[in-house]
């Protein structure tokens, strides 16, 4: 990686280019055709689930998170390529603020001159049956800016600016004739030919060869300096985010869990998820090897996110208020059984009965039957005794034997909002340290 340039430009230009408020983008889950035929409600994926942030003119904002955390969807929503379910995306254009979320398609088409995108897969981002000259020049043609010799001239300029020189050699080529890096350069040329304000770069280097990654990032920095661009840089590669971004926003399951200056976040990550992500970066210096605290478990289903803090089932710092619920109990029981021999599993499984009813998110879970209630209660106590430090137990309000079996009631959880803490904003119950644990967003 080349050295990071001085971050002086960002200090001057700090007025806001975008204000995103409570943005939600939900995708309809397409059930099978049978489900649709019978009009069954198939639910939604909360790809972006209540995101607010400010994008400053001239900065590079990184969106970082695991696969499926909603980075691409958020980026597309900024450009109006996907219709938000609710919330506002306020763009401070030259002629006054516009809300991208409610603009008509015609207005959006006009705005596309200022808002551009670079895609993850350069092999798919160019029309295979269009030559490079036509492809790169098409934005100018669509917006009626140039044609004929002028168009050709500007295309040649753009191509040479992105390092495809001499331009004549590339203009008549088709995408299949170019390498991945060259294609991504052509995509960049197409994106900057209109002189945009914002460039959303969705993992622009992740599908490229190691050898050209740094060059493409350097090219993007050069373009930014020349054209006064603002970048939203989407990635799951923290190393490149550290090099490239002025600020980063860490996303998890459709939410921003931490956002702040890159240096601050890398030096002292606050959210347990950020800590886990940073710990997962391969450490080249063996003396500084830290114990890898990879988040346990799998990324939950975005259609049914966990109650309370979305991260609590995987969180090493979870406490009683984090929003424990029925599905966590199921995971706990299943983990317990992986440690038991098959006979014990058989016996205990019969005792507890089917766990499927725990899959519906609820603050109360019922196990076993009326007659087996006492035994189930004992079993739970035994499991608890094996690992009393398991944070789930701290979130249990009470365990009562009833006529239908044993009822496990969980304490009310907190769904923490983004709060200021030492120069960054973080959505965790532990931050800021001074604040007492009061519910910020109840979960109903």
């Amino acid at each position, binding site marked *: 990686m080349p050295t990071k340039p001085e971050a002086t430009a960002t200090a001057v230009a700090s007025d806001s280019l975008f204000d995103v408020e409570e943005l939600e983008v939900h995708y309809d889950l397409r059930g099978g055709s049978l489900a649709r035929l019978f009009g069954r409600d198939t639910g939604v994926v909360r790809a972006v689930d209540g995101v607010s942030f400010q994008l400053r003119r001239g900065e590079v904002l990184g969106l970082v998170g695991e696969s499926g955390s909603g980075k691409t969807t958020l980026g597309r929503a900024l*450009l109006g*390529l996907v219709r938000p379910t609710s919330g506002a995306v306020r763009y401070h254009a030259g002629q006054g603020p516009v809300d991208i979320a409610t603009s008509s398609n015609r207005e959006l*088409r*006009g705005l*596309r*001159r200022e808002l*551009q*995108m670079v*895609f*993850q*897969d350069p092999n*798919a*981002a*160019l*029309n*295979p*049956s*269009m030559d490079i000259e036509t492809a790169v020049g*098409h*934005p100018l043609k*669509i*917006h009626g800016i140039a044609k004929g010799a002028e168009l050709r001239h500007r295309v040649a300029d753009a191509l040479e600016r992105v390092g495809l020189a001499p331009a004549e050699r590339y203009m008549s080529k*088709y995408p299949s004739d170019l390498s991945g890096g060259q294609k991504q350069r052509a*995509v960049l040329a*197409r994106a900057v030919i*209109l002189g945009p304000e914002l460039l959303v770069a969705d993992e622009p280097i992740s599908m490229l060869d190691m050898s050209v990654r740094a060059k493409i990032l350097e090219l993007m920095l050069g373009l930014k300096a020349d054209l006064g661009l603002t970048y939203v840089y989407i990635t799951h590669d923290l190393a490149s985010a550290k090099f490239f971004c002025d600020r980063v926003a860490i996303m998890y399951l459709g939410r921003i869990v931490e956002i702040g200056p890159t240096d601050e976040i890398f030096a002292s990550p606050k959210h347990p998820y950020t800590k886990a992500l940073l710990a997962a970066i391969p450490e080249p210096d063996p003396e500084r090897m830290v114990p890898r605290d990879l988040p346990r478990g799998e990324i939950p289903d975005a259609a049914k996110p966990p109650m309370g803090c979305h991260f609590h089932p995987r969180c090493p710092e979870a406490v009683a208020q984090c929003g424990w619920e029925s599905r966590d109990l199921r995971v706990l029981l299943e983990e317990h059984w992986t440690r038991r021999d098959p006979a014990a599993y058989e016996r205990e499984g019969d005792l507890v009965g089917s766990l499927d009813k725990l899959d519906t998110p609820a603050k109360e879970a019922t196990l076993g039957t009326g007659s087996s209630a006492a035994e189930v209660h004992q079993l739970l106590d035994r499991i608890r005794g094996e690992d009393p430090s398991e944070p789930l137990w701290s979130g249990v309000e009470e365990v009562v034997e009833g006529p239908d079996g044993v009822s496990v009631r969980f304490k009310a959880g907190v769904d923490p909002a983004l709060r200021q803490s030492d120069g960054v904003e973080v959505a965790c119950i532990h931050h800021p340290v001074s604040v007492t644990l009061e519910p910020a967003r109840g979960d109903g």
Partner: protein
Amino acid sequence: MLSRLLGPIRSTTGTARWLLVAGVAITGVFVLMALLAPWITPTDFAQRSVDGVKLPKLASPSGEHWFGTNDQFYDIFSRVVWGARTALTVIVLSVLFSLVIGVVLGLVSGYVGGWTDRLLVFLTDALYAFPSLLLAIVFSFVLSNALGGGVVAAALSLTVVYIPQYFRVVRNTTVSAREATYVEAARAIGAKDTTIMSRYLFGNVVQSVPVIGTLNAADALATLAGLGFLGFGIQPNEAAEWGYDIERALDDAQAGVWWPAIFPGAAIALLVIGLTLIGEGLNETVNPALRRRRLQEVVMPARGLATSGVAAAGTADGTEGER
């Protein structure tokens, strides 16, 4: 652009190329016949006398009437040659009409989606489910009332039969191409829907259309002849048509007069074969699933006796890998 289109054809070899060459040769003869009909035929397609002298009825093939004459005093050679013009005109028109309509409908349906798509898919599926000859009969019946029993009416009734095939293929490829990143990229640079369809989707979804076109051409000819044979097609005073001629010749054939039936019959068979060969040849060439590209064999420079055995083994493996 042309070299890109011809690229896959040039890269074929063996069977596919021979199919294509044979098909083009056979079809070419018929095209020549159609183009040169007025100059190479002794009579017009519905001419019973030459210079005031009536033609003989059912004269057997001779130097004067190469294929003989039929029960309507027509010169059969002239009828066959003029028939090629009729057949090719109808084929070209019907393939062109159905191709244009099917491609446009398929593109719009696949891109727009929703109810438009569902309705069009339902309608074309219904058309597709009908036996093609039956459908052609129904439409030629309707159209010949409106347009008369001419070449255009026949072509249009065949058009209806073949629209669903283009529609299906184009609509299905459009549905998957619509999700491609380059389509979103087009939207991101501000392209209108019409621009996306014409500049970004069209070129990528029509690749298999020429193949369907040539395969349908053969089918269209057979259907046209079927219509003529059943008396629903082109009226005899409008143009010479092989199917009609065969029907007229059936009674005579039973009486041992073979020539009025055999020549139009052979013409149909040959042209169907020619068109099918082109279609299959193109299919093997353009359809990537069937295609076996010819790879350049890598020739290793000789490096002495010790390594030659290894090099030979490598080459053998290489050719194996190509398949």
